[in-house]
C-alpha cells in the first residue's frame, strides 16, 4: 500500500497525470511532434546502450536462460491474447490478430517505469534487462501477424510488414544501442554517460507528459471499444505478468528482475506494433488496438500493475 502511494508520487507518474489533466481542461499545451520523436529516439537508444554495456559485463551463462525465456514469452503471449480475444471475446479474426500483435510486443516506457520503480523501493534488477526488451520487441508481432496470413484472411502485405517491424526505428535503435554499448564497453561508454544516463529520468518526465495527453485523447474512445476490451486490457496483462514472474524466476532472474520482466511481458506495444499492423492488416481498426494498449493497459501498468508484479515476484520468489 505504501509502495503504491509512493509510486503515485513519483515525478514520472505525476507527469503522466498532468498530461491527462491538461487535456481534460482542454489546455492548448502541446508537445511539439519533433520533441516527441527526439525523446523516443533518445530513450530507445539510451535503453539499448545501457543494456549493451551491462551485457558486456555479464557472463554468458547468466544471460542465456533469461534470454531464452523472454523469447519464449514473445511466442506464447500473442497466442494467449489471440485465444482470449477470438474465443472469449468473439472478436473477428483480423482485429483479434491485430490486438494480439500489440500484446506480444513490449512497451519500452513501461519497462523503464518498472526499473525506476524497483530502484525507488531499493531493489536492483539485472543490468542486462534492456537486452530483453530488444528480444521481446519483434517475435510477438510476427507470430500474431502470421495467423490471418496463414488463414489467407489478410489483405495487406506480410512481407512489407515484416520488413517494417525488423527495420522499424525502435528495433534499430534498441538493437543498435545494445551492440554499440556491448562493443564500447563500460570504459568508452563513460564519456557519453552523462548524456544518456543522468538525463534519462528527466527526459522521461517530458515523455510521460506527452503520453498522458495521448492517453487522454484516447479516453473518449473507451465507450467505443466496449467493456470486454477494457477487461481484456487489465486481466490479460495480469495473467501474462504472473506467467512471466514464474518463468523469470525459474530462469534465474532475481526477484526484481522477474518483476521487471513481468511488466515488459504484460505491456502492449504502441510504437512498433501499430506500424506493422497498419501495413499487414489494413482492415483492422486502430481504435481497438491503440485504445487497448495505450488507453487501458499502459495506465494500468504504470499505476497499479508494476507494484502488483513486484509484490507477486516477492511472494513467489519468497523474499
Amino acid at each position, binding site marked *: 500500500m505504501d509502495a503504491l502511494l509512493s509510486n503515485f508520487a513519483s515525478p514520472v507518474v505525476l507527469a503522466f497525470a498532468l498530461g491527462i489533466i491538461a487535456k481534460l481542461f482542454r489546455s492548448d499545451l502541446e508537445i511539439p*511532434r519533433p520533441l516527441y*520523436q527526439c525523446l523516443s529516439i533518445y530513450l530507445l537508444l539510451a535503453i539499448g546502450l545501457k543494456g549493451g554495456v551491462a551485457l558486456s559485463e555479464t557472463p554468458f551463462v547468466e544471460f542465456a536462460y533469461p534470454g531464452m525465456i523472454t523469447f519464449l514469452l514473445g511466442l506464447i503471449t500473442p497466442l494467449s491474447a489471440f485465444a482470449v480475444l477470438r474465443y472469449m471475446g468473439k472478436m473477428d479474426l483480423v482485429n483479434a490478430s491485430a490486438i494480439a500483435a500489440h500484446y506480444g510486443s513490449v512497451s519500452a516506457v513501461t519497462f523503464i517505469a518498472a526499473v525506476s520503480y524497483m530502484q525507488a523501493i531499493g531493489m536492483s534488477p539485472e543490468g542486462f534487462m534492456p537486452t530483453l526488451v530488444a528480444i521481446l520487441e519483434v517475435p510477438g508481432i510476427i507470430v500474431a501477424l502470421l495467423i490471418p496470413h496463414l488463414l489467407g484472411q489478410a*489483405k*495487406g502485405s506480410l512481407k512489407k510488414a515484416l520488413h517494417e517491424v525488423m527495420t522499424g526505428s525502435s528495433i534499430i535503435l534498441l538493437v543498435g544501442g545494445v551492440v554499440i554499448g556491448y562493443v564500447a564497453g563500460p570504459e568508452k561508454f563513460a564519456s557519453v554517460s552523462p548524456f544518456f544516463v543522468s538525463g534519462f529520468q528527466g527526459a522521461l518526465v517530458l515523455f510521460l507528459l506527452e503520453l498522458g495527453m*495521448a492517453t487522454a485523447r*484516447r479516453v473518449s*474512445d473507451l465507450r467505443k471499444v466496449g467493456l470486454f476490451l477494457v477487461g481484456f486490457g487489465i486481466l490479460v496483462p495480469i495473467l501474462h505478468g504472473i506467467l512471466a514472474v514464474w518463468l523469470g524466476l525459474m530462469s534465474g532472474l532475481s526477484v526484481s528482475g522477474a518483476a521487471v520482466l513481468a511488466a515488459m511481458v504484460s505491456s502492449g506495444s*504502441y*510504437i512498433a506494433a*501499430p*506500424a506493422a*499492423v*497498419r*501495413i499487414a492488416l*489494413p*482492415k483492422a481498426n*486502430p*481504435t481497438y488496438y*491503440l485504445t487497448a494498449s495505450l488507453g487501458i493497459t499502459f495506465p494500468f501498468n504504470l499505476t497499479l500493475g508494476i507494484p502488483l508484479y513486484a509484490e507477486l515476484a516477492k511472494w513467489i520468489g519468497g523474499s
Partner: protein
Amino acid sequence: MSVSEFHMVTIVTERILKEDILDLMRAQGAKGFTLTDTDGEGSRGVRASDWEGKNVKIESIVGAEKAERIMKAMAETYFENYAVIAYSYPVRVFRGEKYT
C-alpha cells in the same frame, strides 16, 4: 517562352503509405513531387499515424492523361482500406517539357 496547361494531382494520405504511393505515381509516369507534412481530419477515426507522424500531402504536376491514370490507380488500390483523398486541378506552367 510558352505557357501550357497541366494537371496538379494531389494526394493526402497516411505517412505510412508515402513510399508506396510515390512508387505508384512514378509507375504512371510522374516526373517530380512536392511533399508537405500535414495534419488532418476526415471521415475515418483515429489511425496509426498518430504515432508515426502526420499525414503527408503529395503533389505532382503531370499531363491530363497521366493525371487520369494516377487518380484511377489510387482509387482502385487505396480507397477502400486506407485514409486517403485524391484530387486534381488544372495549372498553367512555363517550361512544360519538364512535366511530360
